[in-house]
C-alpha cells in the first residue's frame, strides 16, 4: 500500500534511510529517540521534505512531483492544525473544498462529522474559544471528511493529558478501522504503540527499520529499542 523504495533523506548532520512497505489498513506507530528523524519521515511522505533519492509509492502511484495537497493522504501536525481566523465549521469544510464553496449537502456532512467527534453545535466557534482536546477532535474531523487512504499523525495529541490522549487514540482507531485508512503515527510513548498499533517502525541510527508486529517487537526488543526504552 504505502511503499518506501530505497528512500534516503539527508540534511546537514542528518541522514535517514527507509526501504519497506505497509499493508493497507494497518495502524503503525513510529517510535525512536528524539532527533532520529520520525517527523522528517512523515514530512517526506507528506511532501514537505523531498528525499535525495528513492521513491515513495501509494499503490502503484509514485508521489514524487505531487504537491502536498494532491497526495492521497492527510497529515496532522503537532500544532497549528486549524486556522485561527476561521470558524470550526470553515476549518473542517476546507477538507471538502479548499475554496469553501460548499453545497447544502456538504454543509450537512460538516455538521455530521462535528457530531461524530462530539463537537455538535460548536461549528461557529473560533479555535481560540476551544480547549486542546476539542481542537484535536476538530482536526481529526477534517481528516475524516478528507477520507484519504493514509493518515499521518505527527504527535498531534502530544499536548493533551493522558486520559484525553487515550480517548483521541481510540477515536483514531475507530475512524481508521471504519474507513480502512492506513495510519502512520509518530509517538515517543511506547504505551501508545502498544495500545492501538498493529505494527511499529523503529527509527534509530539513521534507519527507519522495517515495520514489525508491535506485540512481538516489545516482547523481544532488539538492542536499539532496548536502549530507547531504557531497559
Amino acid at each position, binding site marked *: 500500500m504505502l511503499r518506501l523504495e530505497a528512500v534516503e533523506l539527508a540534511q546537514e548532520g542528518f541522514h535517514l534511510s527507509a526501504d519497506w512497505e505497509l499493508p493497507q489498513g494497518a495502524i503503525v506507530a513510529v517510535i525512536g529517540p528524539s532527533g532520529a528523524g520520525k517527523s522528517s519521515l512523515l514530512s517526506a511522505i*507528506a*511532501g*514537505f521534505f523531498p528525499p535525495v533519492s528513492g521513491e515513495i509509492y501509494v499503490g502503484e502511484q509514485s508521489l514524487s512531483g505531487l*504537491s*502536498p*495537497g*494532491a497526495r492521497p493522504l*492527510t*497529515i496532522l*501536525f503537532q500544532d*497549528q*492544525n486549524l*486556522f*485561527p*481566523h*476561521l470558524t470550526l465549521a*470553515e476549518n473542517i469544510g*476546507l*477538507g471538502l473544498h*479548499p*475554496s*469553501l464553496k460548499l453545497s447544502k449537502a456538504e454543509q450537512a456532512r460538516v455538521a455530521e462529522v462535528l457530531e461524530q467527534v462530539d463537537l455538535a453545535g460548536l461549528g461557529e466557534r*473560533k*479555535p*481560540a474559544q476551544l480547549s486542546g482536546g476539542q481542537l484535536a477532535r476538530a482536526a481529526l474531523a477534517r481528516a475524516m471528511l478528507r477520507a484519504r487512504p493514509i493518515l499521518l499523525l505527527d504527535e498531534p495529541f502530544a499536548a493533551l493529558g493522558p486520559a484525553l490522549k487515550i480517548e483521541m487514540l481510540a477515536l483514531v482507531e475507530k475512524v481508521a478501522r471504519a474507513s480502512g485508512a492506513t495510519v502512520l503515527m509518530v509517538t515517543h510513548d511506547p504505551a501508545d504503540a502498544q495500545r492501538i498499533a498493529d505494527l511499529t517502525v523503529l527509527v534509530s541510527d539513521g534507519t527507519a527499520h522495517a515495520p514489525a508486529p508491535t506485540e512481538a517487537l516489545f516482547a523481544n526488543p532488539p538492542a536499539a529499542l532496548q536502549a530507547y526504552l531504557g531497559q
Partner: protein
Amino acid sequence: MAKLAVAIGLFALILVTAPLVAVAYRAGGLGLSAADWSALRFTLWQALLSAILSVLLAIPVAKALSRRHFFGRSTLITLLGAPFLLPVIVAVMGLLALFGRSGVLNTALSALGLPTLSIYGLQGVLIAHVFLNFPLATRMILQGWQAIPAERFRLAESLSFTPREIHRHLERPMLIEVLPGTFATIFAMCLTSFAVALILGGGPRATTLELAIYQAVRFEFDLAHAAGLALLQVLVGGLAALVAWIAARQAGFGAGLDRRLPLPAPTGWRLWLDSTAILFATLFLLGPMLAVLLPAISGLLDLPSQVWPALARSLAVALGSTLLTCVTALVLALGAARGQRWLDIAATLPLATSGLVLGTGLFVLLQPLIPPASLALPVTLLVNTLLALPFAYRLLLPEARALETDYGRLADSLGLHGLARLRLLSLPRLARPLGFSAGLTAALSMGDLGVIALFASESQATLPLVIQRLSGAYKQDVAAAASVLLVASSFALFWLFDRKGRNAQA
C-alpha cells in the same frame, strides 16, 4: 500564484530600469563640479542625521503606544499617519508658522529679549524630515511590537520577567529585526528630499541632489546635466536601497492563537517616560498642522473654480495608484515569503530612484513619441505606484513571512492554492498591514508634488500643483484654504483604508 509573482516582479523591474537607462543614456557623464560634490555631501549627511533622529524618537513612542491604553490612543495612532497626508509643502509651511522668522517660537524668544533661532539650513531640513518621518518610524516599530504574540508576554509574566528582561528577551530581538529596515527606509526617503530642501535649504551649503536636478532642468535648461545628477542620485540611492534590502531579516516569532491579552504596563519612572513620549508625539504632530490649517478654514468657501477639477484628478490618481500598489505589493510579498528572494529587489528598487529621477527618465523616453504633457496623469499614477511600492512591500513582508511560517504547510497539505488561498488565508490574515499600506499609498499619491510638476500643463494640474501655483502667485490665503481641502481628502482616504484594514484583520 508563483508565476504571477514572477510576471509582476519582472514588470516592476522593467518599469523602474527603463527610465534609469534613459537617464544614463542621456547623461553627459559623471564629471562633477564642486557644487555637485557639495550637494552629494549634504544629501548624505542630512539623510543620516534625519534617520537617526527619527528612529531614536520613534522607539519610546512606539513602546508607550504598545503597552499603554488611554483615551485617544487609536486617534493618535491614526494621527501618526498624518504627516504623510500633509503634502510636504503644507507641512513645511506649518513648521515655518511655528519656527520661522515671525513664527510662534521666535516671537516668544524676542519678546523675552533672547536671540532668535533660524530654521533655514541643516537644522531646518532636519526638523522637517524628523517631523515627516518619525511617525512612519513609530508605526513601523509599533507593528513589530504588535507582531510579538501576546502569549509571549504572558509567558514572560509567568516567569516573572522584569521590564528589563522583557526588553532583553522579547523586545530587543524584535527591534533588531525591525529597526534596520525602518532606519534604511527613512534614510533612503530623506536621500530623495526635494520640497523640504527647496524651501528650507538651498544655496551652496544646503542643496540636495534632488533640488540640483530640479534647478538643472528649470533654470539651466540642461537636460544632460540633470540626467548626470539623476544618475548620481540613483547610485547613492541604490546603495541605500541595497542596505535596506540586507537589513530586512526573517522574523523569528512563532504563532499566537489570537487571544488578545493586555501587555504588561509597568508603573514608576517607566510610566513617566511613556507619558512624556506620548505627549511629545502629540504636540509635535499637531502643532505645525494646526498652525497652518486652523487659520485657513474660513477661506474654504471662496475657493477658486480650478480647485474642484484638480481635486477630482488627484483623487483618481490616488485611488488608481493605491489599487495598483496594493495588488503588486501583496503578490510580491507573498512570493518572497514563499522563497523567491529576488522579488525583494523588484519591490525595493524604486527606493533607489525618486520622483524627479523617474520623471526625468520617462520624459526622455516619451518625448520622441508623444507630447509628455498629454500623459501627465497616467505617468503620475505610474510613478506614485512605483514610489509607494517599497513601503507597502516592507509593511507586508514580515507578516507574509510569519503567515507562511505558521500556516504555509497546513494550507499546502489541504491543497489551499490560488484565489481560495488569497480569499481565505492571505487577505484576512494580512488585512491590517494591507489597509495601512493602502492608506499610506493613497496619502503619498494624493499629496505628491514631484513628477506632476515636470509633466503637467495648465489643464492637467493636480491639487498639490494648483496649491503650489497659487502660492507661487502670492495667493497665500487661497493656497492655505486649498491645503485644508487637500489635507482633508488625504486624511479621509487614509482613515478609511487603515480602519477598514484593522476591522477586517482576522
